[in-house]
């Protein structure tokens, strides 16, 4: 985030609030703030995942002209990325949700959770949400910025950070 010009200040960019329904968090682009739903976040692991998810939205807001409020495609893209890269759709989390599947199930989960996230914040039909997700899926599922890979665990995240620290050497020698 800092490298992209959006250094995070905990007091400025995070807000803990009580939320309606079972929403865990959100990114408010109009105030550049990540909202954490203190009444719905269950434990540290859940918190880690929610923070990661919302930081991906914040990262997209920082690096791109995302039309959060006027483009369902743009919203869909960021939700696909957040579901893909935050651990939302890990095998373990899906099993806890009683969603059983192995071969390519991650992609099914990402699609379904992106649709749910859109419907939670936009008053549109399920068909419109599905259409937007399907249109952008190929591009956005394969956009792994800033990690360069899907960070399945701490090891992958460490390797991604190592690559980030090595970026100057990398790009000057290829």
């Amino acid at each position, binding site marked *: 985030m800092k490298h*992209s*010009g*959006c*250094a995070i*200040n905990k007091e*400025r960019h995070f*807000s803990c*609030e009580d939320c309606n329904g079972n929403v865990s968090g959100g990114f*408010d682009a*109009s*105030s*550049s*703030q990540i909202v954490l739903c203190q009444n719905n976040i269950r434990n540290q692991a859940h918190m880690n995942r929610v923070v990661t998810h919302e930081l991906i939205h914040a990262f*997209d*807001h*920082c*690096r*791109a*002209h*995302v*039309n959060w409020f006027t483009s369902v*495609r*743009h919203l869909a*893209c960021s939700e696909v990325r957040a579901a893909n890269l935050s651990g939302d759709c890990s*095998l373990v989390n899906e099993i806890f949700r009683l969603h059983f599947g*192995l*071969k*390519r*199930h*991650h*992609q099914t989960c990402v699609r379904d959770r992106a649709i749910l996230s859109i419907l939670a914040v936009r008053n549109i039909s399920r068909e419109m949400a599905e259409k937007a997700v399907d249109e*952008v899926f*190929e*591009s*956005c599922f*394969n*956009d*792994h910025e800033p990690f*360069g890979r*899907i960070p*399945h*665990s701490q*090891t*992958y995240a460490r*390797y991604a950070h*190592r*690559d980030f620290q*090595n970026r100057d*050497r*990398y*790009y*000057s*020698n*290829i």
Partner: protein
Amino acid sequence: MADSGSWRPPRPCETYHAEWKLCRSARHFLHHYYVHGERPACEQWLRDLASCRDWEERRSAEAQRSLCESERARVQAARKHTLVWALRQSPPADWHLPVPQEKDK
């Protein structure tokens, strides 16, 4: 690509080794199959490791060429999809400004 005099492998050789080991691990097989529905392909990491070591030992021009080609292919593969949105030239102007007044807490 930097001129031959100052060139060095894009990643340290230990990194190629670590990536190859991770790619070949059972956990990565599971992750990859869960995401892509097929087994991962790890051979290129091993080829790159061999090239890296070859360059370190013999300053092989062929090793340098092979590594550059391999990494450029990785970059190309990561960039092949057209982005849905336009990238910014600079971060949002209000990122560091105080929270707007109407967001009352």
